[in-house]
Every structure is written in structure tokens, then in C-alpha cells.
């Protein structure tokens, strides 16, 4: 099984595993709505290192979604700098941003966002298609990724034939298929029942600990945030608290205490 350490890292000697993957320096984001200016982010600085597992929390309007959009290279900061693996993303063109989203970032959404009438394998393959990988390599990687989330036997299933938890696992496989530097999950458990939510967190914990994948997830559920190693809480466009989680629960153990539901 391939490791998820970027092959490009060796080209950059200044960058060592465990060092910062994301550096955010005094990022502001202002939206202009007619005459009115909305300050979504008012000076955010932070750093996320390799193999971290960060949960971002905050009420709606706190700026956490804007922050996630910037982290995911879907949006650019109005001012300040965002360095992803040492590259200043705030200066890149749309085309380069699309490439970074493809190569360095894996997205997991609340609503799974799988393409309907498209099999699990093809959904997983999608990012490799835009990465211009050869056909055999695409299928190989997609199967590997599906195996990682425990869905190797469901590759020919359509989303409509899968449960919510399984669909979210396909989405995670899709996020991992291009071996990104970071996995961004936006309320990944928002549409799932509590047991399935813990199952997803179990997968995240395993990916994080066994494979060293860096994960940033947005949630508004405190008990979900507890599975992460570090919690950042946003308020009024700024980071209010940034704490390391003490007594972090193990999702595997939590699952044992929960009643099993028929899949």
C-alpha cells in the first residue's frame, strides 16, 4: 500500500515530515454586498502540521466556512497569506488553484456529493481523471482508496444502492485517491446518525494515525470534535480558542459501547 507522503517533498529539503503543511498568516476576507462590507475573517493566523487532526468549530457566521473555503483553495483571501506546503496559494491563478485542489486537497462534504448513476469505483476515480493519469493507474488507485475505507467489495454499486455511511466512505475514498497533502471535511457527519458518525470518525482516526494523513474537519457537534487531536473555535471572524484535546476518545472503543444497527 502506498504511503501518503507527497513524493514531491524530497525536492524541498527545507520541508520535513511533521513540519507545517498549512500556514495561515493574518488572513482577512471581506465580501462586498452592494454598499455594505462584510468582514468574514478579520485576521486569522495559524499553522497546521503534518499528521495533525484538527476540528474547526463555531457558530454560523463565525467565519469557519469562509476559512474552510480558503483552506480548500475554493476562495482567495482578501489580504494575508496562505502557504500550502510552502507555496503561497493567495497568488495563484484559477487554473493553478484547480490543480492544487486536485493534487493536494481532498474534499469530504456534508451531503456526500457523489455523482448519481455513477458507480463507487467511477466516483472514486473522478479526481484521477482530472489529474491526467493513465487508465490502469486510475483504476488501481481508486481500488486502493476504496479498500482503505473498507468498501473494496462495493465498487460496482451506485450511490443509491449504498447507505449514507457507505456513501460518505466512497466520498472519503475519492478525497484520498490523488494522495493529497490534506483532507478537508466539511460537516462530514452532519447527515448521518450517531453510530454511523462515529464509524466515520473511526475511519478518520485510523487514516490519521496509521497513514499519517492530515485532516481538518468542520463540525458543530462537540462530541464529534472530541475525536480530533486539536480543536479550533471561531468567533466573529477570528480564532477564539485553539486547544489540544485531552482524553481523546477512541472511535473503535466508542463503537463497542453503542448498540449495533442493522446495515
Amino acid at each position, binding site marked *: 500500500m502506498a504511503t501518503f507522503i507527497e513524493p514531491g517533498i524530497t525536492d524541498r529539503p527545507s520541508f520535513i515530515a511533521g513540519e507545517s503543511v498549512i500556514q495561515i498568516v493574518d488572513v482577512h476576507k471581506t465580501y462586498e454586498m452592494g454598499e455594505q462590507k462584510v468582514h468574514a475573517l478579520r485576521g486569522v493566523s495559524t499553522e497546521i502540521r503534518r499528521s495533525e487532526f484538527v476540528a474547526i468549530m463555531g457558530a454560523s457566521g463565525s467565519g469557519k466556512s469562509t476559512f474552510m*473555503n480558503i483552506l*480548500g483553495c*475554493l*476562495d482567495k483571501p482578501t489580504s494575508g497569506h496562505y502557504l500550502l506546503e510552502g507555496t503561497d496559494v493567495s497568488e495563484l491563478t*484559477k*487554473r493553478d488553484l*484547480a*490543480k492544487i*485542489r*486536485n*493534487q493536494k486537497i481532498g*474534499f469530504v*462534504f456534508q451531503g456526500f*456529493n457523489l*455523482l448519481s*448513476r*455513477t458507480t463507487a469505483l467511477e466516483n472514486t476515480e*473522478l*479526481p484521477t*481523471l*482530472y*489529474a*491526467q493519469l493513465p487508465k490502469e493507474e486510475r483504476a488501481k488507485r481508486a481500488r486502493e482508496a476504496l479498500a482503505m475505507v473498507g468498501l473494496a467489495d462495493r465498487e460496482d454499486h451506485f450511490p443509491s444502492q449504498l447507505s449514507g455511511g457507505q456513501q460518505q466512505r466512497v466520498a472519503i475514498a*475519492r*478525497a484520498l485517491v*490523488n494522495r493529497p497533502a490534506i483532507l478537508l471535511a466539511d460537516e462530514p457527519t452532519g447527515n448521518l446518525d450517531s453510530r454511523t458518525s462515529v464509524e466515520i470518525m473511526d475511519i478518520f482516526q485510523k487514516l490519521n494515525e496509521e497513514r499519517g494523513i492530515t485532516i481538518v474537519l468542520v463540525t458543530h457537534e462537540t462530541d464529534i470534535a472530541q475525536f480530533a487531536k486539536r480543536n479550533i473555535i471561531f468567533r466573529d471572524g477570528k480564532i477564539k480558542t485553539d486547544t489540544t484535546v485531552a482524553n481523546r476518545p477512541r472511535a473503535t472503543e466508542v463503537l463497542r459501547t453503542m448498540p449495533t444497527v442493522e446495515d
Partner: protein
Amino acid sequence: MDVMAIIRIAMRALARNKMRSGLTMLGIIIGVGAVIAMVGIGQGAQQQVQQQIAAMGSNILFVSSGTVNRGGMRMGWGATKTLVYDDMRAIMREAPAVRMAAPGSQTTAQVVFGNDNWSTNINGTEPQYLDIRNWPLQEGSNFTQNDVDMAANVAIVGETVRKNLFGATDSVGQTIRIKSLPFKVVGVLVPKGQSAAMGQDQDDTIIIPITTLQKKMTGDTWLRWIMVSADSKEASYAAQQQIEGLLRDRHRIRPGTDDDFFVRNLADIADLQDQASQVFTLLLAAIASVSLLVGGIGIMNIMLVSVTERTREIGIRMAIGATESDVQRQFLIEAVVLSLIGGGIGILFGLSSGFLISALLHWPVLISPLSIVVAAIFSAAVGIFFGFYPARKAARLDPIEALRYE
């Protein structure tokens, strides 16, 4: 992203809404089919006209006696008696662009064979007339120069005359009566049908030696017409000028006075006919193109709906790394696949309706490979043209907004 993969995605997207894709394609199918069938009809008509002209001979000039003004009364074509046999000899001798010439005189007479009779044109001429008109015989043989010299009673009949007088009986060797004179039928002309230029039945005629007509029937000494063939279609214009100059000279027509003869160049008529049928083809193609245009607008419409419906999908694709051009290409190819499949079916539709039209209505339909190729290219162009705006719209979507779209 390789093109085959995009085409597969496009096919799947189109298959997702079979009814809608089918109806959208119908616009293109009808458009392309109409263009192919209409152009086929136009080109068929054009070819028919060209064939008729070729049969008539586009290097032919028809010199006829002209009009005369008798005390303010203008008599119409053929009224003058100034066109004579020597004019024809002079044309042969002095107009270098002329290859052959045949004199002609004519009358109308009742023709009798047994119990049947028929009124027709009697043309008196010389044997080379049939060569000039490139008019072979289906039976028998031409009369000879000797028959002309002797003013022999021999006749060649046209198909219409043969049908009306003889029906199923053999005609060659029979004797018919024209103005109570007995004539031996020596040949039957192959049918030529209606003339493209004049629209009259060319087969309704009897041809006899000019001397027989003039001496035994009409008593005329002048000619009604001279049929001239030039060396080629191009030479016919020079021949026309040469003949006009020569005849004005011979008839001593002063500058500024009207000719007493009239030269009609069949090349002119051929050009005119050809132009008319080209305009006809163009007109049909233009009308049919309107339906292709409407089909294209249908594609644009459906692609815009599709882009709106699939906003979320576009957002997903952008989030996982599709660039603007990837998205644009995807939707553009979808539109092109739609219009090309429609175009392909439209070609079959056009071919079969062209076949039906020629089979049922007996219209000449000529579908050239070129028009099929043009139709295929055109339908792809329609897809690109009308797919461009929707594809652009898809590519310009903001991924954040698109992902949030419900």
C-alpha cells in the same frame, strides 16, 4: 483529461434524460434531414436541366428570319423573306467559329396513315440537321443529300407522330400522306421529350428534305431558320457575333436599323436555366437551414437547462480539481455529441426521404456525398456554436456557490 473519457461522460449524461435528449435531437434530425432532402431535390432538378441542355446542345445557335415593319405594322418573327439559302452557305464559308449549319423551312400539315391522322410540324432541312442537334434515330436511317437534290418524298418521324399514326405497327417503310403527297417513312427519331428552353414537345415533328417542302408543298424560296453548331459552347458567342455581322452585311442593313433576322444562342439559355436551378437549390437549402437553426436553438436551450440542473455536479467537479476549461469542454462535447448523433440520424432521414420522394413523386433527387459531408460538418458546427454559451456559463460558475446549490 482524455477525450474518450469525456465522450463517455457526455453519453451517460445524455442517456440520463433519454426523452429530453431525443426531443432535442429531433430538431437537428429534422434540420439535417430537410437540408439533405431539399438540396437533393434542388440538385436533381439542376442535373435534369443540365442533361436536357446537353441533349439539346449548348453549342447551337438558332438563326431565324426576323420581323418586318410594313407601314407601321410589325409582323413578328419569321415574317421576313430575306433569309435565304445563300446566307447559310456564306455562314459556312465565312464564319470561322461555325462548324456546321443546316437550313430550315417549315409548315404545319395534317398527316394521314390508314385511318389515323395527326396534325404536326413539317420541317424541311438537310441531313446534317440531325448531327447538329445530336439527335439519333431509333429505327431506320437518315435521308441523304441525294434525296435533297432530288426533292425525294422521304420523311423522318418523331416519337409522338409515330405513336399517333402507327401505334404498334412498324413505321419504317410505310407510306404516309402529307398534304395529299405520299411520303415514305425512312426513320424514327429517338424521343427527346420536352425542350428545356422552349418547353414544347420536340418529338411532335416530321423532318423531310427542304427541297421537297419548298418545291412541292409551300413554294417558299426563303428560309425560316438556319440551325448552326459552333465548335464549342465558348465558340458559340464568337459564332453569334460573326453571323450577326455577316448577315447585316449581306442584307445591307445600315447601322442604327434593326436586324431582319434573329440569332438565339442556346448557350445563353443554358446559362440562364442553370442559374435558375442553382437559385432554386439555394432557396431550398436556405429554407431547410432555418429548421437546422431552430434545432440548434433547441440544443442551446436544453444545454442551459442542463447546466442549471447540474450546478451541484459542476461544483463537485471543480472542487476535486476540474479546471474551467475541463468543465467547458465537457459541456461543449455534450452539445456536439447531441448534435452529431442528431446529424447522423438526420442524414439517414434525409437519404430515406430523398429516396421516398423520388420513388413516390418521381422527382429527380440527387444526393451527393458532398452534401452529406457538409451536413455532418454543419451539425457539429451547430453543436459547437449553440453549445458554447451554455458551456461557458457552466465553466464560469463559482465552485462555492455551485456546491451550495440545491
